[in-house]
């Protein structure tokens, strides 16, 4: 799954801290490192922001993994802004001002866009209410047939007692009675 949760972000920050400590230790010992040459800010810092953004051209491909040249330039721009001391929010605001809300991974919580967040839970709530109503009505209602284990066919084509008996026998056998 391309999206990451808060936990993963915490994980990456942990690695970042360890990475910084490692660089300091190695640098202090004046040993030339052959590990990854991380620009400042690092690719991981850039990707943490790019992961929640989308360019208008590459639909549904998060910016951090989009292979196009245009998206690579956007990632460099994020790196540049981070180096200038911008926060994640400032960077996102900048891109929204330039290219519109669609660069964000989710619609901003304002105006019509609230519908995105409100409608599914409201629908679910409506479903719960319908279900409660069904349960209530069902428990109040008298069964069409006397026994809960037997069924009488309402259709006129099933008035034949032989057919009813046959179906009943089949049901009993299917239930393993």
């Amino acid at each position, binding site marked *: *799954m391309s*999206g990451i949760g808060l936990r993963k972000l915490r994980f990456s920050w942990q*690695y970042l801290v360890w990475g910084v400590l490692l660089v300091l230790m190695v640098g202090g010992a004046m040993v030339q490192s052959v*590990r*990854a040459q991380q620009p400042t800010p690092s690719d991981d810092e850039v990707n943490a922001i790019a992961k929640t953004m989308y360019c208008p051209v590459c639909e549904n491909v998060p910016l951090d993994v989009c292979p196009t040249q245009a998206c690579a330039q956007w990632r460099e721009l994020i790196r540049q802004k981070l180096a200038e001391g911008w926060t994640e929010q400032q960077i996102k605001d900048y891109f929204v001002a330039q290219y519109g809300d669609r660069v964000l991974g989710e619609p901003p919580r304002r105006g*019509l866009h609230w519908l995105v967040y409100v409608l599914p839970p409201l629908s679910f709530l409506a479903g719960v209410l319908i279900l409660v109503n069904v349960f209530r009505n*069902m428990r109040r209602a008298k069964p069409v047939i006397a026994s809960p284990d037997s*069924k009488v066919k309402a259709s006129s084509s099933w008035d034949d007692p032989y057919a009813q008996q046959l179906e009943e026998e089949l049901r009993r*056998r299917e239930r393993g009675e």
Partner: protein
Amino acid sequence: MVAEIGFGALIVAFVVSIYGILAGLYGARRHAEPWLESGRRAMLLTWPLITLSVVCLVALLVGGHYEVQYVYNVSSRFMPLYLRITALWGGQAGSLVFWSWLMAAFAAAATLRKWDRDREFLPWVIVVTLVTLAFFLGLVIFVENPFVRFWQMPDGRQAVAMFAPRGATPLVPMDGRGLNPLLRHPGMILHPPMLYLGFVSFVIPYAFGVAALVTGRTDDRWIRITRRWTLVAWLFLSLGLILGSRWAYDVLGWGGYWGWDPVEIAAFMPWLSGTAFLHSVMIQEKRGLFKRWNMILIILTYALVIFGTFLTRSGVLSSVHAFAQSAIGPLFFGFIAFTFIGSMGLLLYRWNDLRSEGVMTSLLSREALFLLNNLLFMGILVVCFWGVIYPLISEIFTGQKVTVGPSYYERSTAPLFAALLLLMGIAPLSAWGHSTLKTLGRALWKPLIASIVVVIGLWVGGIRAWSALLAFWLVALVSLVTLYEYYRAVVARHRRTGENYLRALWNLAGRNRRRYGGYIIHLGVVLMALGIIGIELFQTETQGTVQPGGSLRLGDYTMLFQRLDVFDTQDGRNVARAVVSVFKNDRYVGELHPRRDFFYDSQQTMTIPGVRSTMEDDFYVILVDWQSSAQGITFKIYHNPLVNWLWVGGLVFILGTLVAAWPDREAESPRARAAQTLAVQGA
């Protein structure tokens, strides 16, 4: 000539479909058996006709007839034979022909069943199936014809037409543009046919549902007839989704298997409603309840099948303007509206006839829990549907598109999936008709305590995140309940019959394949859940640029970059392939070759990750950039714990579906034996 034959066969199939519809309608109205029989044969005939058309198109693809526009667009000289054949569904027009062909195959299979007992359904099954088929054939013939060819006009212009315009000469390009590289993966070769099979086979249960509504046959006969059709449809749809996920994991190069892309969701939505339907029909079969709801679910599933095809074929996902300009989009939209409104109108007409025959006496009964399961599936469906169409709504009302990305879907559906897992653990233990807390508790307490012990073990083992502990608890609970159900049944059978445990298990599953196949499916789901939990909650990643001899570290793994090879291949690719050594806890565990393939014919690039795979985790390396940075090669690496359980779970899931769909040894005999018994009694 081959193109003309293929196109002609399509036209004849279309005419035959229209004839079948009219014959079915007339036969039903006049109770004219010869007309019904004629309609049935017309439905049967569509398949060989469309088969002929498919054979022609494949012959054109294999023969490299680049004067045919479709062949030019999806194939090239470099492509091997198997890819030229699978290019049949590699483009819009071909995939619509392929859809129609599969649809006709299922229609033909439906005609060959024994109709003696359910003759009143026949005309309406013919009408509904052939209306669907005729719609798709109409699209192919009038809008997306795969047989149109290039022509050189006398004035030097180029034209595309089925038949030669006046004075034009055939224009034959030397080579084609080739198949989209992303579609050249084995997963993508099998994924579309599986999805299409799932889509088209849901048309049959829908046709029977509509037939039941039209004829007023409000008993559960239509459900019993279509149970296997529905399971087969569900099997193919599930296979399609699993293969699609594997393809995404192997080819798309972002370390994941499911990106909540609208195209993925388009296939997922009918699966959701179909799964709800599969559970819900059992309530009607066992208890005579919720007949209306089952009708709504099958109508919804059919509508979502067409809607899914519409989403991927109309261009509506890229923009509402593209939809408005496309010829195919409004036609699809009209067809969905026509079938959905028509079906719902019929349902309303029969509303009073479809009253439940029994009552629900307990909130903890199996039927009540199945209903809750349906609510959760519908909840996930609403989230998906709304997430897919909201960008279009935003574009219509604000003029600006928005992105509804994975975070929306993950946040909204995670609690619903968790609740579904919980139900999966409880529902198998509840009884049809009546269950109480006491009876349920008596059946549940042993697996429940064992599952809590598992969670305590995980906590002691160092897992502290409550979301992970909750998820693992649910997985443990469902697994233990399912295994405990098997255990209890096997022991009971062993005591009763004296069979050894293995034979008892075999015979048990053989006697009630639906139930025990269902349990295997549940086990498959929990294994898949294990993989999903691993990648969702524990995936880590890093990216860095290294010179040869440089390394990147992620968790216990170290990746040492050895060298980069860039070379051309005989099948028209330029390959940039890195060679990296992988160490786990500083111990060498293997060599990986992440690469980027550039396809000369289509001018497209494909990323192939290098993956070290074990049941514990995957170490997944992507070559991000090897050209622009003077500092070296940029790699992105992912650590994906437990992800392979997703694929293992998928296999178990499919196995369970096969077991459930396999004809019960005793499924036919009770009917015959019951009839015999009654006959003897009557005598």
